[in-house]
C-alpha cells in the first residue's frame, strides 16, 4: 500500500509538471508582450492555430521536431500580424486581440475539418516520448518527477532563467521593459518602441506556438476542437499572479499544472461522486480566486494597453 501511494505521488507530480509546461510557455509568451506594453489577447487563438499547424506537419511527415518548428513559426507570424494591428495601426488591444482569437480559432477548426473531414476516429500521431536524463533520473522520487520529462519540458524550464536574464541584464531586455513602462523615455534614448514591441510580440507568439505544439505532440497525441479549452485565458491570469516576472510566473504555472493534475486525478478516481464538469471548472475557479487575492497588490507595466505614436512626443 505504501509503495502504491508512492507511485501515485510520483505519477501525480510528473503529471503536474507535464500539464504545467503549456501553461508555462503560454504565460512566458504573454509576459513578454505585456512587459513591452502590449496585451496579447490573441493568445487562445494563437495557441490553437499553431497547434493544428504543428499537428498537420507531424501527421504528414512524422517528424515531431519539424512540427514543433512549424508551430513556433506560425505563432511568430501571428505575433507579427498582431504587431501590424496594435503597434503600427494602433488599434484597441482588447478588441483586436479578441478579433485575433476569433479568427485564429475559426481558422484552426476550418483547417482541421477540411483536412480530416467530419466523422470517423480522430487522427492521431506518435507523440513525443519522455527522455530520462542519465544518473539524474535515478535519484529516488525527484528523478522520475523532474528528470524523466519531454525534451520540450526541459526547454520550457530552461527558458525561465534565460528569460529572467534577458529581461534584467541585456540591452534588449532593458529596451523591452522601458517600452512597456515608459515608451517616451525609450524613444528619447533612441530606442525604436515600435521595433521593440514587434520583437516582443514575435517572441510572444513563438512561445505560444510552442505551448500549442506541446499540447498535441506531448500531452495528447491528437488535435481536438477542445484542445486548448481556455488554457490561454488562464495564462493571462497567471501573468498577473506571477507579477509580470519570469520566476514567479513559472511558479504560478507549476501551481496550476498541479491544479489540473489534481482535477484529472479526482475526475478519474470516482472517489467523490459529483458530476465531472465540476472538476473541469476547478482550474478556472481557483484562478479567479487567486486573482481576487493578489490583484490589489500587483502593478501592470505602466504603458500596457497604450498605443505609442512617435508624432505625439
Amino acid at each position, binding site marked *: 500500500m505504501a509503495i502504491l501511494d508512492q507511485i501515485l505521488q510520483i505519477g501525480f507530480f510528473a503529471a503536474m509538471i507535464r500539464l504545467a509546461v503549456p501553461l508555462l510557455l503560454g504565460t512566458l509568451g504573454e509576459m513578454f508582450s505585456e512587459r513591452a506594453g502590449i496585451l496579447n489577447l490573441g493568445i487562445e487563438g494563437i495557441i490553437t492555430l499553431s497547434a493544428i499547424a504543428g499537428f498537420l506537419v507531424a501527421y504528414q511527415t512524422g517528424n515531431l521536431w519539424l512540427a514543433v518548428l512549424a508551430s513556433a513559426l506560425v505563432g511568430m507570424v501571428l505575433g507579427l500580424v498582431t504587431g501590424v494591428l496594435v503597434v503600427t495601426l494602433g488599434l484597441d488591444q482588447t478588441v483586436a486581440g479578441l478579433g485575433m482569437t476569433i479568427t485564429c480559432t475559426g481558422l484552426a477548426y476550418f483547417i482541421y475539418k477540411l483536412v480530416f473531414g467530419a466523422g470517423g476516429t480522430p487522427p492521431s500521431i506518435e507523440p513525443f516520448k519522455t527522455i530520462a536524463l542519465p544518473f539524474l533520473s535515478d535519484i529516488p522520487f525527484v528523478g522520475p518527477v523532474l528528470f524523466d520529462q519531454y525534451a520540450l519540458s526541459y526547454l520550457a524550464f530552461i527558458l525561465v532563467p534565460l528569460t529572467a536574464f534577458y529581461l534584467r541584464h541585456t540591452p534588449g531586455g532593458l529596451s523591452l521593459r522601458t517600452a512597456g513602462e515608459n515608451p517616451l523615455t525609450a524613444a528619447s534614448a533612441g530606442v525604436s518602441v515600435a521595433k521593440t514591441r514587434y520583437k516582443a510580440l514575435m517572441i510572444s507568439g513563438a512561445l505560444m506556438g510552442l505551448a500549442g505544439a506541446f499540447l498535441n505532440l506531448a500531452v495528447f497525441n491528437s488535435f481536438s476542437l477542445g484542445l486548448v479549452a*481556455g488554457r490561454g485565458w488562464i495564462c493571462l491570469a497567471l501573468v498577473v499572479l506571477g507579477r509580470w516576472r519570469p520566476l514567479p510566473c513559472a511558479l504560478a504555472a507549476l501551481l496550476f499544472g498541479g491544479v489540473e493534475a489534481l482535477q484529472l486525478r479526482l475526475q478519474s478516481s470516482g472517489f467523490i461522486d459529483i458530476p465531472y464538469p465540476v472538476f473541469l471548472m476547478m482550474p478556472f475557479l481557483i484562478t479567479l480566486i487567486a486573482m481576487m487575492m493578489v490583484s490589489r497588490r500587483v502593478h501592470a507595466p505602466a504603458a500596457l494597453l497604450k498605443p505609442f505614436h512617435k508624432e505625439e512626443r
Partner: protein
Amino acid sequence: MRFSLEPRVSAPIWLNLALPVAAVAASMILCGGLIALAGANPVSAYAIMLKSALGGRNQIAETLVKAAPMILTGLAAVVAFRAKFWNIGAEGQLLAGAMAAVFIGTQPGLPTWSLVPLMLLASIAAGALCAAVPALLKQELKVDETICTLLLNFIILYAMMALLSGPWKDPVSGWADSPNIRMDAEFPILLHRTRLHLGILLAAVAAAAVWILFKKTTLGFGIDAVGENPRAAMHAGLNVKRLILVAAMTSGALAGLAGAGEVGGVQYQVLASISQGYGYSGLVVATLARLHPAGVIPAAVFLAAITVGADEMSRQTGVPVYLADVIQGIALLCMLIALIFIRYRVRIRVRAAA
C-alpha cells in the same frame, strides 16, 4: 510621395454607413480564398449562402431567429464598451439567463400567464448578477474585468454542464440535457409555419430601449461620460463606480435575455450547445455597429445570415462550416482598421526630391 493621417473633427455620414459594409465585404473576399482552398467556387458558394439565408420566407425567418440573440449580445457589448467596461462575458451571462429561464419554465406551480414574463425577468436578473460579479471585483479588488469575464465564461459553462449531467440529467435516457419547459412557457410564434418567435421582437424593443438610454437619459449620458474620461466624470460629480456597475449589469441583463430567447423560442430546454458562440459574436456585432444601438440590428442580421447561410453552404459544397467564424473574426479586424478612416483623413503629399 508620402501618406499621412490627419485627425478630423467629424466624418461624413456616408462613411459611417459604408465602412461596416466595406469591412464585411473585405472579409468575405479574403475568405473567398479559403473557399477556393476547400475546392469550391467562392462565387457560387456565396450565392448558396445568400439564397439559403435570405432566399425565402422560411429562410428569412431562420436568419431572424439567429439574429435575435446576436442583437441582444451585441447590445450587451455596446452598453459595457461605451462605459469602457470590457465585459467579454456575454457568453456566460447568456448561459446563466438560459438556466434561469429553464428553472422558471419547468415550475409546475406557477400560473400559466406568468410563465413567460417570469422567465424573462429571471433571465435578466441572472445575467445582471453574473455581470455584477466582475464589476464589483474590479472596483473592490482591482481584478481585471477582461480576464475575469473570460474565466467566468468557463466557470458558468461548466456549472451548467454539471447541472446537465447531475441534477437535470434525464433519469430515463441519461441524456445530458435539461427537462423541457412547460408548453405554456414556450414563446409565441410570430410567423405561421416558421420558427420565428417572440425573441426577435424582444431584441428590437431592447435595441430601442438602449437607443433611448443613450440618446435621452442622464444615465446614458453618465455612462458615456465615464467611458470617455472617468477622471473628468468624477470631477463633474458623477458617481463613476455606480455608473460602471449599472452599465455592467445592464449589459449582463441583455445577454441573459438572449438566453431566455434560446430556451423559450428555440430549444425549450438547456443543452450543452445552447449558445453557438453568441456571446463572442456580440463583440463583432457591436464593433460593426460602432457601438451604436441602431447599428446593432443590421450588423446582427448580417452575421446571422452568414451563420445560417454557412450551414447550408457547408452541406452542399463540403466547405467546413467554421468559415462563418473566420468571416466574423476578419470582419471585426477589418472594421477596426476601417475605423481609422473615420477618425483620420488620409493625406497624400508629393514631396519635391531633396
